Structure formats: C-alpha cells, structure tokens
C-alpha cells in the first residue's frame, strides 16, 4: 500500500462514515437516493480513472460500458426467474461491452481514444432497432429487488467501498505499476517482458465486472435505465475532470471529485440548465490547462 498515506485512509473513513450516517440525519428518501447515486457515480469515476486514464488508454466511450452494464443488469433482473441472475447480468455485460476490447488490442494512443468515442453513439440506434429488449427511447423500467430502501442503501455503500478499496489495492500492486509502464511507453513495457495482451484483457474484464456491480445498484436507486446513460455529454466531462486530480491516491480523490461533480451537475440542472454545458466544458478546459502547466516537460529529450 505504498501509494496511500495515513491521511488518505483517514479521509476515506471519514467520507464513508458521513455517507453511512446520512439516513439517520434525514428521513427524505429523495435526498438519500441522490446521495447514493452521487456516491455510485464517484465509484464509476474511480474505476474509469484506474483502468482508462492511468493506463494511458484514454477511453472516451466509457459511457457505452456504463449503459451496457446498466442494461445487462436490468435485463437480468427483469427477466430472470432464478437465483442465477447475477451470472446473467455479468455475461450480458461482458457480451455487450466486448466490442470495446477490440480497439484496445489493435490501436494505441489517440487513435484508440478516437475509436472509443464512436461506441456511445451506437447504443441509441441499437435500442431503437430492438425496442422490446432495450425499451426504445424511453428505456426500461427496473424491477425492484430490495424491499427495504435501507438495505439497498447500505448494500450499495458496502459494494462501492469494496470496489474503491480494491482499486486502491490494485494501484499499489505490480499490476498497477504495469499500467503506468504501459502509459509511459508501451513498446518499452513489451520489451521488458510485461504481458501486454493479458493485461489488456484482464483490465477489460475487471472494469466491466466492477461497472456492472455498481450499475446494478445504480439502476435500483434510479428505477430506470435508458440510452441516455450512454451519452458522453455530460458524463464524460465529469469523469475526465474528476480523474484529472491524478496523484498517488487517485482512486480516492476520483471518488470524492465524482461525488462533488455529480452534485454540481444536479445544481446546474436545477438552476442554470442552459449554461450547464458551457460551465462544465470551461471547467474541464481550465482543469486540464492547469494540469498541463503542471506536467510541463516530463521527459528530458536527450
């Protein structure tokens, strides 16, 4: 756990405590649902940050995976009659997300990124072509699995915390450093015996598994899943912004930034809806401008 200081772990516990006691502070299930959704969004950002930013394989189509996992979970819950529905959810999620593995195996750098950008825009047409399965433009209603909201709340928090803890752990392992090596110089990593193909496949599987487990709770809290989830605007802006706070310990900071940005988006929707995109994109540009100045010249050119 070399990357995480005691301060970071304390911060994690503080946030977790806050979220856990929230139901005791307010009876409004509306607030609790919003809190839960923002928390789960933060977890998604943390997943995105580790697997798709830290590796240098900047995935601009992560919302496709988010939506696919959402639909996979919804279909599994709605249609399954036995206890095997988690298996169905995972299989569907992997099957739907699988095309996104192909660019990762064939392309690098900016061309990987631009190829991934196409995927989110494929989901609305698919939904329109198969309205029975995907619910068309309106989306799918999700059958509630939990009878008691508090059970949903606490299970979701636990799962989210486990995912973030797992992400932090992976970041500190050899695999986590392989991600950085691949980002720095994939050719060199390959020439150093790093098993690039295996890592890419592993990365894909773990990220989809984590995303589908988060999305299961997400759609339970929101009650519905639609192709709107796949629209990169504005989710991509927020995931990129939140992971720009990169430094060792980034999974945790991604979580916090994700939660904060989700609330910010909510506020903007409520009060300044038509300026939302302008503000979000300006913020994104500024954050990266500052980050860009900070990075400077990373490698001395001899």
């Amino acid at each position, binding site marked *: 756990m070399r990357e995480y200081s005691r301060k970071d772990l304390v911060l994690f516990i503080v946030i977790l405590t806050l979220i856990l006691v929230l139901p005791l502070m307010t009876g409004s299930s509306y607030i609790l649902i919003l809190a839960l959704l923002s928390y789960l969004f933060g977890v998604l950002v943390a997943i995105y940050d580790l697997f798709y930013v830290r590796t240098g394989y900047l995935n601009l189509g992560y919302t496709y995976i988010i939506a696919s996992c959402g639909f996979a979970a919804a279909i599994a819950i709605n249609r399954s009659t036995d206890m095997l529905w988690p298996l169905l959810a995972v299989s569907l999620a992997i099957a739907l997300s699988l095309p996104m593995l192909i660019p990762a195996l064939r392309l690098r750098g900016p061309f990987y990124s631009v190829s991934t950008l196409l995927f989110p825009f494929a989901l609305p047409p698919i939904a329109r072509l198969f309205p029975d399965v995907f619910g068309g433009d309106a989306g799918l209603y999700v059958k509630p699995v939990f009878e008691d909201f508090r059970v949903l709340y606490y299970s979701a928090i636990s799962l989210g915390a486990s995912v973030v803890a797992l992400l932090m752990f992976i970041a500190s392992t*050899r695999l986590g*450093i*392989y991600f*950085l*090596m691949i*980002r*720095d*110089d994939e*050719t*060199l*990593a*390959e*020439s*150093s*015996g*790093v*098993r*690039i193909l295996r890592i890419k496949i592993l990365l894909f599987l773990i990220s989809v598994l984590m995303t589908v487990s988060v999305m299961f709770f997400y759609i339970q809290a929101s009650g519905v899943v639609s192709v709107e989830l796949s629209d990169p605007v504005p989710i991509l802006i927020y995931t990129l912004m939140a992971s720009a706070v990169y430094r060792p310990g980034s999974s945790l900071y991604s979580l916090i930034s994700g939660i904060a940005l989700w609330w910010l988006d909510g506020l903007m929707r409520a009060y300044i809806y038509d300026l939302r995109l302008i503000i979000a994109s300006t913020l994104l540009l500024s954050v990266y401008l500052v980050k860009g100045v900070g990075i400077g010249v*990373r*490698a*001395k050119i*001899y």
Partner: protein
Amino acid sequence: MLELRSISKRFGGVIALDNISLKVDKELVGIVGPNGSGKTTLFNVITGHVKHDQGRLIFMGRDISRLSIGERVRIGILRTFQSPKVFWSLSVEDNIAPLTRNKAHVEEVLKMLDLWERRKAMPTRLGLSYVRRLEIARCLVLDPKLLLLDEPLAGLSSVEASELGSLIEEIHRKLGIGVIVIEHKISHLSSFAKRIIAMNSGRVVIDAPAEDAIRKVRDMLLSI
C-alpha cells in the same frame, strides 16, 4: 547461441539487410558502421521489432522467427534502444523492481550499475550516463542470455564512456552472457570488444577479432 542465416530485409525500395549470415556465442561483440548500414535493423530483426523477409534466425538451437517480442524477451534476448528509453514517470527502483519477484536480484543489479544510491530518484534528474545504466539494469534484471546494446556510449564524455565501457565488459565477464554492442565510433569499442563486425549498406564487410578489425577499418578509410 545466436545464428543468423541469410537474413534479408527491405523497406520499400531500400535494402536494409542483405543476406546476412553470422554467429554469436557468449562473446562481447561490437558492431560499427555508418548511418543506414543496417545496424539497428539487425537488432530489430533479432528482437522481433521488425520481421525479416528471408532467412532463418536461430537462438539456442531453435528457430525463433515466429516468436513475438515478448516471447523473445522471456527466452533471454534483451535490448536497449538508440535514444534513451526508460519509464520516465517512475523512480529508478520502480523502473526495475516490478519486472521481477526477486528483490535481492534487483538490489544486486542496481548496485552493480552504481544506481543503488540513486534508486529513489526520478530518471529525469539523472545524467545521461546513469539513464543508460538504468536501461542496462532493466535488461539485467530480466536474466538475459543475450544482451543487445544500441549505442550505449553515444553522447557521453570520454570519461563516462570509458567507465560505462568497462562496466559492460564487467557484466559480460561476471554473467557469462553474450553481449552485442552497436557503436558509432570504433574507438569506443576498442577498449572492451573482443570481436568487431563492420557493416555497410546492409552487408557485413568485416568480421574479425578486435585488433584485426580495427586495422582493417583503418586501412579501408585510408584507401579512400
């Protein structure tokens, strides 16, 4: 250990390697030649970064032509590159440690290359000489049987170059591995290479023990 049989490679209209045949055992060999003579392409073919058009590539008795870059690394063919290539955002230690489970080995390698004191430093803060050592350290930690060094002394001062040259010889001696060094200046190689190959236009023009080779190269240059 390594054998090239009639290896040829063209890039479009340019013949980079022209029917090259040679054998290298556990020796310290130097390769010289002007730009474009095919030196780096030769390395690229051996490591798999470039696929040869014709010929056979034999390592430890087996034809490795179909092996991927990663597979060749795992059977012991390691290389450095012409321009310095390290993981710039990782410390010296982190450049190497994740590549092996053997911590003692990492320490041993870093100490051998005089990098142990600098193990927490970032490569951007190291002078070129130490960056080159880091590149070699990365190779050593992966247990090479054949080490390919592409212009490791380029850009170094005479003192640094001579130090690194001795270090390369020491590595060859202590580990008993094959080492092939590409260098631009034959003077760099004269102090430690036992055998020197000179290339020109994709062909091997001289292949002899160091002293003979140097004499022949001098004769060639004087006869122009």
